[in-house]
């Protein structure tokens, strides 16, 4: 269970993860903060930022990773989103896609609805802010993803970036990040447009 206060800031971290992203990197981001994070790092056709469909990013990443085994697929999402589809980690483990990495940015809050505690918040954290101390990296490991880890410190970020960009998958990394009030940086919202530009860039047709 986490007792340390998080010190990592999500925006510069995601910027580092996506630095130098080329046509080999396919990125799916969960709704809310993760969407705004990848968009601030630089909107690009091979980003698929979700505006809804909570619980969908890991499944989308898996379907995409199986369809495009030569590309690197990176799923970036939050703790609230991940908690809604824990079973998808077992489905990933059953397939063992070597090109899939999952990064969960865990601020222990539901950011879009007003920073209520998620189950990853500590157990006895007051009447309105308690969770269960849920450890998503341990859940991923328990599901059968062998390569999991938790990142808390700036000194671990370089290794995190290398692992999620290049290490043999499936890779799961939980990153404890601060609760911050950040500007909304929004990509296009039209889902059909986001899908078509992604396919155009990847396949050469919508």
């Amino acid at each position: 269970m986490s007792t340390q206060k998080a010190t990592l800031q999500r925006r510069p971290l995601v910027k580092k993860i996506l630095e130098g992203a080329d046509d080999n990197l396919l990125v799916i981001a969960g709704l809310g903060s993760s969407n705004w994070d990848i968009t601030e790092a630089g909107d690009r056709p091979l980003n698929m930022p979700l505006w809804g469909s909570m619980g969908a990013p890991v499944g989308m990443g898996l379907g995409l990773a199986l369809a495009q085994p030569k590309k690197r697929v990176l799923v970036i999402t939050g703790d609230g989103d991940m908690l809604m589809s824990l079973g998808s980690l077992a489905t990933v483990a059953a397939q063992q896609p070597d090109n899939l990495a999952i990064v969960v940015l865990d601020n222990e809050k539901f950011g879009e609805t007003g920073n209520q505690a998620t189950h990853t918040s500590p157990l006895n954290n007051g009447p309105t802010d308690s969770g269960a101390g849920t450890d998503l990296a341990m859940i991923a490991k328990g599901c059968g993803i062998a390569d999991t880890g938790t990142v808390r410190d700036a000194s671990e970020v370089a290794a995190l970036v290398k692992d999620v960009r290049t290490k043999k998958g499936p890779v799961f990394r939980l990153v404890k990040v601060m609760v911050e009030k950040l500007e909304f940086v929004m990509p296009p919202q039209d889902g059909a447009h986001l899908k078509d530009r992604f396919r155009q860039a990847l396949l050469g047709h919508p």
Partner: protein
Amino acid sequence: MNASATPDWRDQIFEVLQDHDVKQVYHVPDAGHGKLIEACQRSNSMHTLALTTEEEGIPLAAGAWLGGQRSVLLMQSSGVGNTINLMGMPKTLRFPFLTLITMRGDWGEFNSWQYPMGQATPKVLEAMGVLLYSVETAAEVKATVDAAARSAFNGGQAVAVLLRQKLIGIKNFGKK
């Protein structure tokens, strides 16, 4: 009709899926789809994924399509309820989606727990904008699944085929 000369409708569905170049097959364990699932698992051209809940099948299909592959979700009517929020994804992203549903709570069902979701299945799918096809006889399975696949992959629609309990059989349910 001579039964031994009639191809098994589940084999015919497998052929239709192959003809339409379906590469990813999502399923939960299901007696009605059992033989088809096993054929897909044995196929060298398909990825067959067992899910923890039917809901996972929708984002998987979205991801497969983003990557240029066609897919199908095989489920039972009781699983349809698990998919409904994410069943909006094919409409929002406008991608082809095909699901084949074995019906329960439908034709002489013995288990009362299957009726609410079985009876609601066509209504909730329609409410989510999914195009419905329905099959009650073995002779119509192949043409119906083929038409559904065409509506999905050529017409860009979200399509469900309801394989009615009258087709699947009541007494044999639970056996291959």
